[in-house]
């Protein structure tokens, strides 16, 4: 699909009904899967003619910007534009090129300074076969550039405001985001931190301080977790001084198996101080069972919600069950920033206070630290971007769920694929749509998808109990971890970019790349 800037002369000719070619082209483009743009610098002339013909501007805006995005024209664009003979058009080309390196400009102006971009007249564009094709570019798991373009006006605005506001550390956007996340999850406190990993470390450290009166856990203290996760989960346990006790997963949700937790507790008894369940791929763990087990054993629960913002179990958001919930704002996460970031949620005011201290060098007052702290705050700039994106969180979740529904419907007859399930009490956000390949080589299936231009990923190819870091430092395993071993060899995550939901051709290509080999 192309990224197309339509010059204002084409738009006016179409909208003012002056030229049938421009009208037909605009209809064709609006009805296509291409991304359409104007620049902020074009709005003045558009506004003049809207006023001249008494347009209902609110209605026009709603309709027009349902298909067109507005690219910010920056001060630097303006300075650079003055180096061109036609600075006004150069301003457009410079701004557009920043967003679309390989974009196409459609204009009636034959002298348009293309700045290296392709330029077509309306007539050329109308008859251009490539613009009618559905495209065959690589389909990625996520398309963060596309997501940026989708939210461009809001994001550019908050970035510029933050830059001029100059409250770069713990500015008002951080506390606003904390309040919004706390409300969304349904807890008393949310504390912005520098990453999802740090959210885990700070939570575990704060629990050691609260429950043991010590800065760190001891190596003999075991924290039960899953070996089928990203390394950060186990790494956080080590960084908090404790030892991970790896317990097997269930193969229906790939989450930790509560029955295995019970058995592990019988074996390890009081050595176990807590459970760290991971809501993998956005499917919540069985929190009824896990919380019941923890209460009976008198141990804590810290939820790893890195992939599960928006997921719920029996109507309750993940991150609201345990002593803390730990969220990640890594760019690819359900709520992704433009860098690292994280959040701890909790109903425990004492823990919240300790975590706030730990994120700022260990003290309420930076000159009088009480604990071994970190420089682990969430940046104001990240918080501002996340606030803008939070408004679209449920919309994106719904789109991913629709994609999952499409895949479920279209893959159900492929007997060698095991599709993801959704427990009846779960609201799965499909951070990943992960299938399991049965009876054939997962890696060969992945290679074939790649040949069809469909990217896929293995989350995760190496279980934590096979990683050198845990062998060299400290770990325990319970049982043979057979399900984990099965999962690492057979799982495959497919493209689940929410914005693909509007582009059925892409999803059909994913479907066809499987069906071509559904023998």
């Amino acid at each position, binding site marked *: 699909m192309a990224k197309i800037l339509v010059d204002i002369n084409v738009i006016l000719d179409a909208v003012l*009904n002056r030229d049938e070619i421009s009208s037909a082209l*605009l209809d*064709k483009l609006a009805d296509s899967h291409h991304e359409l743009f104007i620049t902020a610098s074009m709005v003045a002339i558009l506004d003049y003619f809207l006023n*001249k013909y*008494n347009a*209902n501007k609110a209605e*026009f805006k709603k309709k*027009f910007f349902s298909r067109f995005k507005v690219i910010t024209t920056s001060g630097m664009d303006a300075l650079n534009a003055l180096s061109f003979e036609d600075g006004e058009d150069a301003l457009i080309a410079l701004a557009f090129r920043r967003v679309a390196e390989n974009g196409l400009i459609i204009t009636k102006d034959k002298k348009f300074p293309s700045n290296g971009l392709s330029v077509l007249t309306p007539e050329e564009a109308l*008859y251009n076969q490539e613009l009618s094709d559905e495209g065959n570019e690589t389909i990625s798991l996520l398309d963060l550039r596309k997501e940026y373009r989708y939210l461009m006006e809001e994001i550019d605005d908050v970035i510029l405001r933050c830059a001029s506001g100059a409250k770069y550390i713990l500015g008002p956007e951080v506390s606003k985001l904390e309040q919004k996340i706390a409300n969304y999850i349904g807890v008393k406190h949310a504390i912005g931190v520098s990453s999802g990993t740090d959210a885990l470390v700070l939570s575990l450290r704060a629990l050691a301080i609260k429950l043991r009166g010590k800065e760190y856990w001891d190596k003999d203290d075991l924290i039960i977790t899953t070996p089928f996760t990203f390394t950060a989960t186990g790494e956080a346990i080590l960084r908090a001084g404790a030892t991970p006790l790896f317990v097997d997963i269930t193969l229906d949700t790939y989450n930790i198996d509560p029955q295995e937790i019970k058995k592990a507790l019988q074996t390890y008894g009081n050595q176990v101080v807590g459970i760290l369940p991971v809501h993998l791929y956005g499917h919540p763990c069985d929190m009824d069972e896990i919380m019941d087990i923890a209460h009976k054993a008198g141990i804590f629960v810290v939820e790893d919600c890195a992939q599960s913002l928006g997921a719920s179990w029996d109507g309750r958001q993940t991150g609201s069950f345990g002593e803390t919930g730990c969220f990640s704002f890594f760019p690819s996460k359900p709520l992704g920033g433009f860098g690292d970031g994280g959040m701890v949620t909790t109903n425990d005011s004492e823990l919240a206070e300790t975590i706030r201290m730990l994120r700022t060098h260990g003290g309420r007052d930076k000159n009088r630290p009480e604990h071994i702290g970190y420089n682990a705050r969430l940046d104001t700039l990240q918080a501002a971007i996340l606030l803008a994106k939070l408004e679209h969180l449920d919309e994106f979740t719904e789109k991913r769920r629709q994609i999952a529904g499409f895949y479920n419907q279209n893959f159900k007859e492929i007997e060698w694929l095991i599709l993801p399930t959704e427990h009846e009490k779960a609201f799965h956000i499909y951070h990943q749509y992960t299938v399991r390949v049965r009876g054939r080589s997962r890696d060969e299936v992945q290679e074939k998808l790649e040949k069809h231009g469909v990217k896929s990923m293995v989350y995760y190819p190496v279980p934590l109990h096979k990683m050198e870091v845990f062998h060299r430092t400290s770990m325990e395993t319970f049982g043979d971890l057979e399900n984990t071993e099965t999962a690492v060899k057979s799982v495959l995550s497919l493209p689940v970019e929410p914005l693909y939901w509007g582009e059925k051709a892409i999803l059909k290509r994913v479907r066809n790349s499987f069906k071509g080999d559904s023998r």
Partner: protein
Amino acid sequence: MKVIAKRTEEGYLIPFSGNLKNIQADEVELYVLLIKKSFTEELRKTFKKAPNRKLNLREEWRKHLEEKYCG
């Protein structure tokens, strides 16, 4: 020669007259646009005054800028 034609809701093909008037060729290849809903017509519905199709936009804009910025 290619000529754009639009299919109406009733199924008729309407070649665009602006294209047709200069056609000398005996054979015409129709380029049919299948538009479910016309975006431009939706936008035009927001206008309370019918636009002057013959208006010289460049001249109109130049006059506007002169009035606004040159007093």
